[in-house]
């Protein structure tokens, strides 16, 4: 059996950063496992810019951001196994993996970093009625077709859901000569970042209709059209508002779900809210020595946030592997209070500053106070929007005396 200090599963922005930081923090043998034939994860197909603004003060495209990390990794002795699919992970950190080059292998790791990312919600997960023709894709699959495989998924396109990937694809497909008829969002506010609404839709005169959804799909072999309906405040379709739209393609940008099959096999506790592992501020899961970071933990808005959790996971995974983290560690819950839909991490373990990622439940378009109590820290923000994660840092020193759970609330100022 192969033995390593830190094994990282997945080589997207979270995994690459975790591997780099595990190495920087002194882990001697770091192994990065990637199921695809190249490192970089989903960054490879995200050819638009806007990556790394905070982390590197540069406006990179996804592939450039990935290549920068990969080049840094190449300068280290971190070992990478490509085409390697991890099929099992035990709670005592034995990894089973398959690859054409290495065959079926078992790896015993002193610590493990989960960085498998997330996958897209599909038609069955949103339950759209109608026929089952070809021409219905998730936005990310269409992105892969266009940006890596080099072909267009269709010519007349309707996009359901206003998640960032859908917005990015509306622009991308328009540039490539397809007609994007419109983006329809069931909620009364957009799913994606405001800058994407402006630069991907408004710039190209692509309409966005809020409080609308697809209520029927027509076509036998190929999509021939969809029916769009208005929804009421309970998100139910309003009779009499149906409009029929001819199209050959329907793209779905209706949310992402952390990919946690391996986490479950290892017995890691998952959160019902984030759908990812419950972790502490050092990204440690409920199973000692197993860490998780990036979109496998919770779906982040920005790669900078993903990388930040990756750095933390890598650093402390190295610490665990070298025995520098104590065994009997205390921790308290971090819970969502007023107008908070989710907060990450869900526990605080007194090892590092507490960097909170918070999603508001309802939009507030006026100044808000984010309160973290105890210790009673208050942070001002100009607004709180469910589609833009808030980030608040509470220094370790302020938290040393905390005994009960920490509550995070968003209030109007």
């Amino acid at each position, binding site marked *: 059996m192969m033995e390593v200090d830190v094994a990282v599963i997945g080589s997207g922005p979270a995994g690459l950063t975790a591997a780099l930081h595990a190495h920087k923090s002194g882990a001697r043998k770091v192994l990065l496992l990637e199921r695809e034939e190249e490192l970089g994860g989903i960054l490879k197909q995200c*050819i638009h810019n806007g990556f790394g603004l905070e982390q590197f003060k540069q*406006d990179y495209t996804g592939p450039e951001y990935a290549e920068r990390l990969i080049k840094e990794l190449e300068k280290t002795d971190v070992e990478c196994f490509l085409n390697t699919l991890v099929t099992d992970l035990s709670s005592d950190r034995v990894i089973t993996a398959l690859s054409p080059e290495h065959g079926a292998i078992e790896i015993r790791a002193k610590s493990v970093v989960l960085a498998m990312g997330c996958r897209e919600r599909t038609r069955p997960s949103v339950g759209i009625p109608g026929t089952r023709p070809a021409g219905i894709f998730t936005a990310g699959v269409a992105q892969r077709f266009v940006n*890596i*495989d080099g072909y267009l998924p269709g010519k007349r396109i309707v996009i359901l859901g206003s998640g960032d990937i859908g917005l990015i694809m509306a622009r*991308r497909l328009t*540039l490539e000569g397809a007609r994007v008829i419109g983006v329809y969002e069931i909620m009364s506010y957009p799913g994606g*970042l405001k800058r994407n609404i402006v630069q991907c839709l408004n710039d190209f005169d692509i309409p966005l209709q809020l409080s609308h959804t697809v209520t029927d799909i027509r076509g036998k072999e190929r999509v021939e059209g969809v029916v769009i309906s208005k929804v009421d405040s309970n998100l139910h379709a309003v009779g009499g508002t149906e409009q029929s739209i001819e199209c050959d393609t329907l793209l779905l940008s209706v949310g992402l779900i952390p990919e946690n099959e391996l986490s479950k096999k290892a017995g890691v506790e998952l959160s019902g809210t984030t759908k990812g592992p419950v972790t502490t501020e050092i990204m440690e899961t409920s199973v000692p020595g197993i860490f998780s970071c990036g979109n496998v933990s919770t779906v982040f808005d920005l790669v900078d946030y993903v990388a930040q959790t990756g750095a933390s996971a890598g650093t402390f995974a190295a610490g665990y592997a070298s025995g520098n983290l104590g065994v009997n560690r205390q921790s308290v819950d971090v819970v969502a209070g007023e107008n908070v839909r989710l907060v990450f991490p869900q526990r605080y373990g007194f090892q590092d500053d507490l960097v909170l990622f918070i999603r508001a439940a309802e939009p507030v378009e006026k100044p808000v106070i984010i309160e973290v109590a105890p210790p009673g820290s208050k942070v001002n923000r100009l*607004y709180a929007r469910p589609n833009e994660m808030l980030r608040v840092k509470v220094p370790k020193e302020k938290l040393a005396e905390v005994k009960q759970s920490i509550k995070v609330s968003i209030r109007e100022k």
Partner: protein
Amino acid sequence: MAVEKKHFVCVVCPVGCEIDVVHDGSEIISMGGNKCEKSEEFVTQELIEPMRILTTTVRIQGSKWPVIPVRTDKAVPKRLFPRVMKRLGRTKLQAPVNMLDVVVRDVLHTGANIIATRTMPRE
């Protein structure tokens, strides 16, 4: 040019201020809704000529993948996007290509180069 009203969403930072501008075609007469001064430069440029980075792909031979991602190395007028796309439709590269290699120099006399955004080894 006559005085006109126009609505903008500022994209300088994530706040995304909704700005109402009264202008005469090139100069701002008055503006409201912005929470900081940075919007002024943005709106002025938007009135004269909206500029954007273009990211897309071009065909490539001799590599694992049939296309390679590229971008302009600085912002170009948004109205030229369709023409730049058309120009790049005629481009076919040969692997290997390194990240930041210039693919098309001074595209459509904009002063911007088209550069590769990943390394593509020969297969």
